[in-house]
């Protein structure tokens, strides 16, 4: 499992970085989304991989997952949405201000 998680995080980071280096706002937005998946997954598995369990103490399980990274990542996902929305609006505003969707402003 650990290898699968590491590969997934690596691929999400790589594709996210690649898209963030593009010149247009839309791919950059997609790249940021992928990168935030990677970051959230990374933070999440810092509590290590625990399968077939849940942080619900009334289940009476032998092992529980670490609930702290889960709580951190939950708010991170929601805030990530806020950030994406802000960037979407910024991209729209940039179209109005610069006349194009190039990240450096205008058509280059």
């Amino acid at each position: 499992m650990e290898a699968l998680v590491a590969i997934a995080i690596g691929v999400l980071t790589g594709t996210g970085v690649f898209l963030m280096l593009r010149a247009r706002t839309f791919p950059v937005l997609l790249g940021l989304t992928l990168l935030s998946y990677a970051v959230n997954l990374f933070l999440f598995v810092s509590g290590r991989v625990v399968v077939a369990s849940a942080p619900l103490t009334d289940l009476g399980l032998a092992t529980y997952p670490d609930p702290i990274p889960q709580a951190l990542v939950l708010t991170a996902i929601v805030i990530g949405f806020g950030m994406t929305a802000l960037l979407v609006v910024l991209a729209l505003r940039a179209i109005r201000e610069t006349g194009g969707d190039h990240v450096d402003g205008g058509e280059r």
Partner: protein
Amino acid sequence: MLLPLVILIPLLGAWLPAALSRAFGIDPARTAGALVIAALAIVLAQAGAVLDGATFVQSWPWIPSLGLNASFRLDGFALLFALLILVIGVLVVLYARYYLAPEDSKERFYGLLLLFMGAMLGVVLSENLLLLVTFWELTSLSSFLLIGFWRHQADARRGARLALMITGAGGLALLAGVLLLGHVVGSFELTQVLASGALIKAHPLYETILVLVLLGAFTKSAQFPFHFWLPHAMAAPTPVSAYLHSATMVKAGIFLLGRLFPALAGTETWFFVVSGAGLATQLFASYVALFRHDLKGLLAYSTVSHLGLVTLLFGLGTPLGEIAAVFHIINHAVFKASLFMAAGIIDHETGTRDMRRLSGLARYMPWTAALATIAAGAMAGVPLLNGFLSKEMFFAETFQVQWLGPWYWIMPVAATLAGIFTVAYSTRFVHDVFFGPAPQGLPKTPHEPPRWMKVPVEILVSLCLLVGLTPAITVDPLLRAAAGAVLQGPLPEFSLSLWHGFNLPLLMSVVALVGGAIVYFTRRYHFDLHGYTQRPVDGRKISEDAVGCAVRGARWLVERVANHSLQRYVLLLVVAALALGFTGARGLTITGTAAPTPADGLAVLVTVALVLTAIAVAALHAKRLLALLLVGIVGLAVSLAFVRMSAPDLALTQLLVEIVTVLLLLLAMYFLPAESPPESSRARLARDVIVAVVAGGAVAALAWALLTRPFESIAWYYLENAKPEGSGYNVVNVILVDFRGFDTLGEITVLGIAAVGILALLQGLKLDGPALDWEGRPWASERYPLMLRVLSQPLLPLALLVSAYLFLRGHNAPGGGFIAGLVTGTAMLLQYVAQGSAWASMRLPWNYTRVIAAGLLVATATGLASWAFGAPFLTSTFGYVTWPVVGKFELASAMLFDLGIYLAVVGVVMVIISRLGGLAGPSSIASREGQ
């Protein structure tokens, strides 16, 4: 008596001259004078006891944890300086009243002067070293303003900047030194520091402390090689020069040498550094002074040279040398202030300070000439004047050096040489200006100045004479008290008298006087003094060049790095992060020791799907709609990963956010081009692929390294206490609303701020969407599909019900405010999609900004309510009620907090979607209606 009053009267009274002048038309000089005299009266009231050897220390705790106390100290040494500052201060206030031109703002001048005076008094009266450094910086700042008083003159501005740069940098060094000193001693109070001399000198940090403190002292007191700011500070009005650059501010460095004398002095390092700097300064500056043509320039270098003399005396580290240093501080302040004032009078009455143009002024202003001659005599060390006495003591002390061995004669010879130059430039000051033929072509016809302008000079010159003639009864008590306070111990035997018999110091005095006269009067056989233009190594040029170089370098770097391309910046950021990461990870093994968890077929399948889809997104990103749909698939795969890895709350959240995000991006796509144009260069593409692969590989390796290492968590605490302390089985939710509720409050606040930012960006924004789709077809005539419309309406109440269910069970099962809020938001969002923004906002007419605000208020109020019960912020409580039908039901204050989260999340989602949905301007709607 309150010591702080002495400092606070001028410091806080600095605005009074201007205020009273504007309100009642009172002469600012009178107000300033009254304030200074009030402060002086407080000091004088204590003078008797201090002269008898008392030390007053008054202390108030300020920030005790940092060792910073508002503590003040008045002992002999502080008394001496306080008297110099206040007495000469009164005289300067009087003098400036006549010196300043009508167009100069007297209000500003006296305000700044009082500010400086308060800062300077703070330096000398501080018991706490941190407090001393604070006042020290304040003197640098206020002197910057005073030097630049004539702010229309470029000279004044440059001189002020230079002074601030040098003394400010020295102040930073001093701060570092004082912090180390406090670290070594364990206290910043002078009483402790002065008593710990042996400890400090034996400490391995002693040399560092010494160098840092001396940097502060030498820059302030214009010691070589930091002397060059002082001559440039002569662009200040002459009263400022007379006050700051003779009597007070430049003496602050020397004050520090004296103040910390018991703590730092007496070692070999101290001797070589301090007296070395002093000797070099004294010789060099006295030589240079002879060649200055500007009266104030000559006096400036003379001041540097005399400060060097005092530094040298402190550097000797002997008790008698220290007494001579203190004595010379007094004498120099008195004669130099009067000479500056005389120079100011000459400038004021003739319009020039250039000695090549001045001549024979004695016939126009005989009384001023007499006063200046006496003061210059004191400067040269002529017998019967005060300068002679301290100079004799200085000459005598130069024989007492123990560290030079067979080179012991260097000190007396250099001292005599400096004495010769001092006599020569003193003679030049008097002879060039007052004697010789009548001056030609002066800007003004010279005459005696106003009566009261001369009074300060007269008082100071009579002090020169009084001290010079009867030292034992005039200056002896003050000198003993001050020198005793410097030493912090018994004084050796010494007597102040005019005649010590024929001895070596007397011989040196005679050689200096005769030699100096010879040098001056035979100068024309060696060179033409007046035709001589000096081009010494100019410290100002060096420092300004250094600053210019730094500015140019910074500009060069900025132009190279900052090319206004965000694309470039992102690349630099990623590359820099990778470089730092690789540097830090050198030599680490990647695979750890923890046993891996076995994988199953489904996990492999989902991972393969996620990897392929993510790569497809990157490869196909130019086709935007396709790429967006693929991103949605990646998000679903991530949700599945959360399910598999025991995080139901996260899976729910991810799923809902994914829906909202994809819808949001779809909405944005309407206004953006449907496809990205091809990349301009394949090289750039290749470069980015390499960077991306390296970054992905590095992060994968990092994740692998993390996952294969054993770890300790504090999870057990939360797992064990979630039920007993937070009354919930869902630990994630209990952490969010209870254990780490403050974090969550911060996070929903950030969300709210993001929504406000979005509103601000959308302010007044109207965009026209394309009239045709990306394949050139008109948009569908049926704007809102019927099936969706019919289905979405009954879905809303159902979704709200689910949302309420998720909210209520959240404390014990997956759910809670975040998830419930997202469900509600999604359901309402569906109405916008299915029915259009106009229809939806008519039926859901809430002001969502207020919903966010209400959410934040509820959450904050829940936290504040715990104060009412005397508990810390956000303490939660819970109880059980039995409801009919439902049965036993738990009520927790955390649920109220969760309600705040719910409202904030709903508000944020709706603000964003409703505003973006309403973005399409009327024109684009109309154009579509027209299709």
